[in-house]
């Protein structure tokens, strides 16, 4: 064992630190790796582990984050820091109460959450949303891996409902729902104008405002999403079927009723890309069955187009994802029952 590690263990063994055992164990694991060896066959294991898994998800969000800071200023950075600090405190307190290791899931949630907020939200609102999202979106279910709803979306939903005025004050045009005040979409819903696709893609020179700060730099989102798929950290099925079904259904509906925006605009506006690549792919809150992933993607796609087109809301991504999150256990159950309907043993 290394000298510094021994020192860490000595400090951790001091009486006054005994309630913080989980914290020390986590630090030990993060810094020194695990000293445990496999108990039997298989005698060696793959090197993928949860910290690397999470760090990849965070890395894929870097372009989006940097762009958000660039577009909207340093306040964004403070929002991210607030989200991490509050999320970290909730996570650590629960780890201490449960006497278990600190789960790494908040590394990703803590970054996704500010990215789906309007860029000028006051820090206290970020703090409340983060607290609520991690607490009621995740911890009361038993922590990462056991939650039903995406914690970032739960937090977002909560502040939208609790403080509609601050969520809407700066960003929401008359037609917009509070979930994401995706302004080019609002403009379309109001006047039928389509913002140029190039503007949408790069987020530069965008005349209308942004809904949430993470959705603006779409090239970065696509790059990050593809990076995750190529690294096999996320499965390709959900984003493909989600975006595919949005394109297909908006194409069909657009022919029937011009109230629905055309496919290319649908794909590139609002929080769709961010949602499809980073929120609908959260492995915990989406189906684990292969067929279930397809159903989830298609279902979320239809819901998004319908909400955007007819519900009087400009943005349907977050709503459709959270609705489908709620359906996930049912979808999985149905897929499994269908797959094994004939078998007995």
């Amino acid at each position, binding site marked *: 064992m290394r000298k510094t590690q021994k020192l860490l263990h000595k400090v951790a063994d001091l009486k006054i630190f005994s309630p913080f055992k989980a914290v020390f164990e986590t630090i030990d694991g993060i810094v020194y790796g695990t000293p445990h*060896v*496999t108990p039997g066959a298989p005698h060696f294991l793959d*090197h*993928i582990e949860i910290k*690397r898994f999470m*760090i990849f998800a965070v890395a894929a969000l870097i372009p989006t984050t940097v762009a958000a800071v660039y577009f909207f200023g340093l306040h964004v950075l403070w929002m991210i820091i607030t989200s991490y600090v509050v999320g970290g405190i909730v996570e650590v307190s629960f780890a201490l109460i449960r006497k278990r290791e600190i789960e790494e899931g908040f590394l990703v949630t803590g970054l996704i959450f500010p990215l789906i907020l309007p860029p000028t939200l006051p820090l206290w609102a970020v703090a409340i949303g983060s607290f609520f999202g991690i607490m009621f979106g995740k911890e009361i279910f038993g922590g990462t891996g056991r939650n039903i709803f995406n914690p970032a979306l739960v937090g977002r939903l909560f502040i939208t409902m609790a403080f509609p005025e601050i969520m809407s004050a700066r960003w929401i045009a008359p037609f917009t729902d509070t979930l994401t005040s995706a302004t080019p979409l609002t403009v379309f819903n109001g006047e039928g104008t389509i913002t140029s696709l190039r503007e949408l893609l790069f987020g530069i020179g965008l005349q209308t405002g942004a809904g949430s700060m993470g959705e603006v730099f779409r090239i970065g989102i696509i790059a990050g999403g593809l990076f995750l798929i190529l690294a096999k950290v996320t499965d390709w099925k959900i984003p493909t079927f989600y975006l595919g079904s949005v394109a297909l259904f908006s194409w069909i509906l657009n022919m029937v009723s011009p109230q629905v925006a055309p496919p290319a605009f649908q794909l590139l506006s609002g929080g769709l890309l961010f949602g499809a690549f980073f929120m609908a792919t959260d492995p915990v809150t*989406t189906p684990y069955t*292969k067929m279930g992933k397809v159903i989830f993607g298609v279902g979320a796609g239809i819901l998004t187009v319908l909400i955007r087109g007819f519900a009087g809301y400009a943005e349907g991504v977050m709503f459709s994802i959270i609705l489908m999150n709620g359906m996930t256990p049912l979808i999985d159950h149905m897929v499994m029952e269908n797959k094994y309907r004939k078998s007995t*043993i």
Partner: protein
Amino acid sequence: METKKKTFKGGFVFKGFQGYPLAVVESIGLPETVMYPLLDTKSLNEALVSKGDTVKAGQLLWQNDDVMGSPVIATINGTVKSIKPTMWEGSKVPVITVESDGTEKWTPVKGVTEDLDSLDAADIEETLYFAGVASSGRDGIPTRFNTSPIKSEEVQHLIVKHCESDVYNTDLSVLLRENTLEDFFDGLSLLKKIMPNARVYMAMNRKNPPWIKELSSDLFDEMVLVTPKYPQGQDEILTETVTGMKIPGECTPANASAIVLDVQTVLHVYDAVKTGKPLLEKIITMAGPGFSNRSHVKVRIGTSFDQIVKGRTAGKENRYIINSTMTGSAVSDMAKPLESDCNILIALEEGRVGEIMLWTKPGFRKHSIMNTMANAIFPLAKINNTNMNGEERACLSCGNCYNVCPSGLYPTQLFKYVERDKVDETVMRYGIFKCIDCNLCTYVCTAKIPLSDFMKEGKARLIKDGYASKKEILTSYGLKETE
């Protein structure tokens, strides 16, 4: 002969690891002492020799036709030093220790003939039995001496395998250099005589074209070219790939009237019948980064592992694993002798020290099923030791386990049922008995959950609680009962 490409869904290709062996055979000389545990008996009196007796290589030490398997034979010339009960994997069995006299000669099995064509099945069976060859492989070679759960004429599929799907594999060229290709074909004809009703298959790694050509012969009814992904070499999956019959975890190929043998066994058959050489020695593949010098070695059965690895360990703290890093067991005591079912001996270093800030490093020499290591782009030889490489966490539904499961199961879901004590019809319906204990799900799990252990527990509990019996499993998969 037909040639067909076949494979299965799922699985994982292991390649580019450290510690592959050289394709040479070395001799490590005769051991000073050898040991033979009489695993199927409790009584000391059943041994056919007593202390102080002189024994010859090939001489019977124990025989009992009521117990399935071959007799135990001496593998060196020398004197019996002791016969005493010893603790052996949890129970006390008699162990015979023989001290070598340093001579290499052996006594041929009776009834040897040069003219292979004149032999009939009964002669061959007898020779194989007394040579100790008949119990090779998972279900043995069926003879009238009770060496296999099925009878010779019941065998419908005889599968000879060389799939190279595990992390470390025996080199085919090494085996066929020690014996010739003709010997292999002769051995095969002998086996065909014993199992006249069998369709004969050769299952080969399809990335091994020179040998595919060499081994193409009309002695085979079908040449099956398989993808070298783990666990293709495991008998259950191989039988399914080749014959289309699913073998659930609690059953063996014999239940599907199939016998799976490896190339080395076919060569042993040839040796025994043609030259009368009993199963005295095996070619063992010594692989893994724990050995300083890796090759194939010829070892007498009964030699202790200590004597086998001598001079190759480079002072490392190693774990020695028999046959497979994925499913094999570790050698618990290095004083124990080599048994005839061992083909590969792997040494992995015990990884008792974690690596500092591993999760921030690019991982040029690290393997991962996801493309999260620099190794995916720069394939340098990958390091493997026994470290867990991470802490156990709650399942995050990453999907690795069900993407690789060769039986098409959802280990993540089955594990949750077993963990929550809900072991009932549902887990059974979700196919838990299809699990063949390949351990691949545990290997790839991001959350480091020992999934396959839960599978084993679930299956054992279902049987214990009376939800299913072995007979019901067999019927529901359309398989036959065996002894």
